[in-house]
């Protein structure tokens, strides 16, 4: 937290200013004050730091050893631990003493690390991230404790630390895979990654989708880098050269900007660590074979499961991005709590690259559409390598980590300087579960404004899906069904209670969309699995449809307005939720029938138009030989 706060203006290392701020914040934390920038201003006792400081220096001397690595890791996490505890207002002293003891006993450090991790009880999703974060944090910390943190010194120390860490890395490759992070400026630390993800979300709420070029341009222009450099950064980071940035591309671009602002010259080619392929598994390789982490993560499978499950509820309607690669890898990483992810990763990357190279929409639509109904079970681990699940877990990770998203927004409002990477500290909260809900609701409010679904507070609409199953097989009614159901549920968006219903028609829509055959461009939009941004498009599509269609819509609209006034009356009353659901179900079915008719009519019209067109073309052909001589 403190690193985030004080490093908010710079990144990657602790400059003198950051270090002083950090110390001040540590003092504040130890005095029980909340960690904010303002607390620096107050008179604070010196932070009780002496033991740690000495140990840092000691450890840096031993940095060449593997033990040194483990030393640093526990120290870093312990420091963080202590910060968090301070923030939560308890056990400051306790966490201070454990740090001291492991310092003195290097061989015991792994066990201490484990113990402390288990005691950590914070940021469950951070479990794997602690380690990589801890290492760079510590490495930076130790390097800068040595001398004034001039960049040159930083560079030299980083080389030293890096070499030591890389040696240790070679020995314990898999468990400590993240330990080679320390000071490579082209690696994205977890803090930074979170920050980037939050920024991405602020620009484009759907994490699986793209940020368009113009949006990204405006955003990056705010960083006040010269345009040619931004242009170069774009070239480097937009790997698929499509004029839009996916999440890993965005993180890479952001990271490059941040690095540039800190004085690093831009590379001519994208560093390997910033490649989208790399970024996806790298960011999600939290659970390694490291026994420590396994034990830790095992202790929280249930909570994670439940959280993932909540995410599935939330995220079943995610838009299928063309970047299936991202999603599938996310899925693999998050769904694998056991240490088999390493082997899977290469397979997945190969698989996903193939998928990516194909026409993503067609491919992924079918997979996601079919798998959406399945995804509602909480037991969605390895067997469901689906895009939606991936998106779920994808959302799960940033969501659960994005404690500080609101604070970031505050920071954004304050600072008008987007490329300040580490986010402000989160509001204090004791329970991750409650936090998640808070986040959910905050996201919901935002989502509602942006036309998103609020997450369903409860349970599986799965039975509902099965009911609707037969409908899908027979009906091909992407447009109309979406329209009516969507029109109805737009009203219900106001209340979370009815959000389950939205899921159901969306699920209905999903399979039916894959069978949809409307040759218009709407098909492209509609054949994507239902998702929150898509809802917006559907809304506009529905509006367009309404404009374009004449007579068929009259019947539709007549039913819809009847529905609409009926619904608001029910909306506000939570006790009538069930009734509302049932009425919605009925209305849905009615709408289905109507839309089916509508669809058939439209198909007929389309055929007629086709025939006319063919006739005209043949006429043209006949006339043409006459003119061309």
């Amino acid at each position: 937290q403190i690193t985030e706060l004080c490093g908010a203006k710079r990144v990657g290392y602790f400059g003198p200013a950051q270090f002083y701020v950090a110390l001040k914040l540590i003092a504040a934390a130890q005095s029980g004050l909340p960690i904010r920038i303002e607390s620096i201003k107050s008179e604070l006792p010196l932070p009780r730091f002496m033991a740690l400081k000495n140990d840092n220096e000691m450890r840096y001397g031993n940095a060449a050893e593997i033990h040194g690595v483990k030393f640093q890791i526990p120290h870093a996490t312990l420091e963080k631990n202590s910060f968090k505890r301070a923030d939560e207002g308890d056990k400051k002293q306790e966490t201070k003493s454990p740090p001291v003891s492991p310092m003195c006993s290097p061989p015991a450090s792994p066990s201490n690390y484990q113990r402390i991790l288990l005691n950590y009880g914070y940021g469950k999703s951070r479990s794997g991230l602690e380690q990589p974060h801890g290492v760079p944090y510590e490495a930076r910390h130790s390097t800068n404790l040595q001398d004034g943190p001039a960049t040159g010194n930083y560079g030299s120390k980083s080389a030293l630390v890096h070499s030591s860490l890389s040696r240790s890395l070679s020995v314990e490759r898999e468990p400590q895979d993240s330990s080679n992070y320390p000071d490579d400026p082209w690696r994205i630390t977890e803090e930074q990654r979170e920050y980037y993800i939050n920024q991405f979300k602020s620009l484009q709420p759907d994490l699986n989708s793209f940020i368009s070029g113009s949006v990204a341009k405006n955003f990056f222009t705010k960083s006040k880098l010269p345009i040619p450099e931004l242009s170069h950064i774009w070239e480097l980071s937009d790997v698929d050269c499509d004029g839009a940035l996916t999440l890993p591309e965005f993180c890479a671009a952001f990271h490059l900007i941040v690095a540039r602002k800190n004085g690093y010259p831009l590379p001519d080619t994208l560093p390997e660590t910033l490649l989208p392929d790399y970024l996806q598994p790298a960011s999600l390789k939290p659970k390694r074979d490291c026994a420590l982490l396994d034990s830790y993560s095992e202790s929280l499978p249930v909570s994670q499961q439940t959280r993932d499950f909540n995410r599935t509820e939330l995220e079943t309607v995610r838009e299928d991005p063309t970047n299936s690669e991202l999603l599938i890898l996310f899925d693999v990483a998050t769904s694998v709590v056991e240490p088999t992810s390493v082997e899977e990763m290469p397979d997945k990357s190969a698989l996903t690259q193939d998928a990516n190279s194909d026409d993503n929409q067609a491919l992924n639509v079918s997979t996601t559409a079919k798998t959406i109904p399945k995804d509602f079970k909480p037991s969605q681990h390895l067997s469901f390598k689906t895009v939606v699940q991936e998106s779920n877990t994808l959302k799960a990770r940033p969501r659960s980590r994005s404690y500080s998203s609101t604070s970031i927004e505050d920071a954004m409002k304050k600072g008008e300087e987007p490329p300040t990477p580490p986010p402000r500290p989160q509001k204090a909260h004791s329970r991750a579960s409650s936090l998640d809900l808070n986040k959910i609701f905050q996201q919901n409010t935002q989502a509602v404004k942006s036309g998103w679904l609020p997450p369903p507070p409860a349970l599986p609409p799965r039975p509902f899906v099965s009911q609707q199953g037969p409908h899908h097989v027979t009906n091909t009614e992407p447009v109309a069904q979406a329209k009516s159901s969507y029109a109805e549920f737009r009203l219900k968006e106001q209340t979370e209670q009815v959000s389950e219903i939205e899921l159901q028609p969306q699920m209905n829509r999903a399979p039916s969309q894959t069978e949809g055959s409307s040759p218009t461009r709407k098909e492209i939009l509609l054949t994507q699995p239902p998702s929150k941004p898509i809802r917006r498009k559907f809304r506009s599509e529905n509006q367009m449809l309404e404009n374009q269609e004449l007579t068929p819509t009259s019947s539709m609209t007549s039913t819809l307005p009847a529905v609409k006034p009926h619904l608001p009356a029910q909306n506000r009353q939570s006790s009538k939720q069930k009734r509302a659901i049932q009425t919605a179900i009925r209305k849905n079915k009615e709408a289905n029938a109507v839309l089916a008719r509508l669809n058939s009519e439209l198909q007929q019209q389309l055929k007629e138009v086709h025939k006319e067109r063919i006739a005209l073309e043949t006429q043209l052909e006949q006339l043409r030989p006459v003119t061309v001589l």
Partner: protein
Amino acid sequence: MAVCIAVIAKENYPLYIQSITTENELKFHYTVHTSLDVVDEKISAMGKALVDQRELYLGLLYPTEDYKVYGYVTNSKVKFVMVADSSNTALRDNEIHSMFQKLHNSYIDVMCNPFYNPGDCIHSRAFDNMLTSMMMQVC
């Protein structure tokens, strides 16, 4: 073996010129400039036909004793002109064609960059590298 490659905008001003640095660099620039007339001729020759039907690759624009000039036009009237050394007889037409395709793709990548305003000179490093490699590879 291309000795000079130029990208020329719709309004016939150069967006990008790169030559293998010899003392005659200006000569290549002049050659490219004069070749624009030929390009325009070829474009206007198919004026009646729809743009879709027009070939993008214009082929050999005109040969001189030292080198040959090839042309390629995109649908947005951006022209690529390549000056190739005549001494390299092994250079076939379809090779030039593929080189132009690569050039076109690189140009598209440059355009995709939101920081690039169409009509600006091309400063992209990636583009430079690509062209340099293209010029060097057949050397």
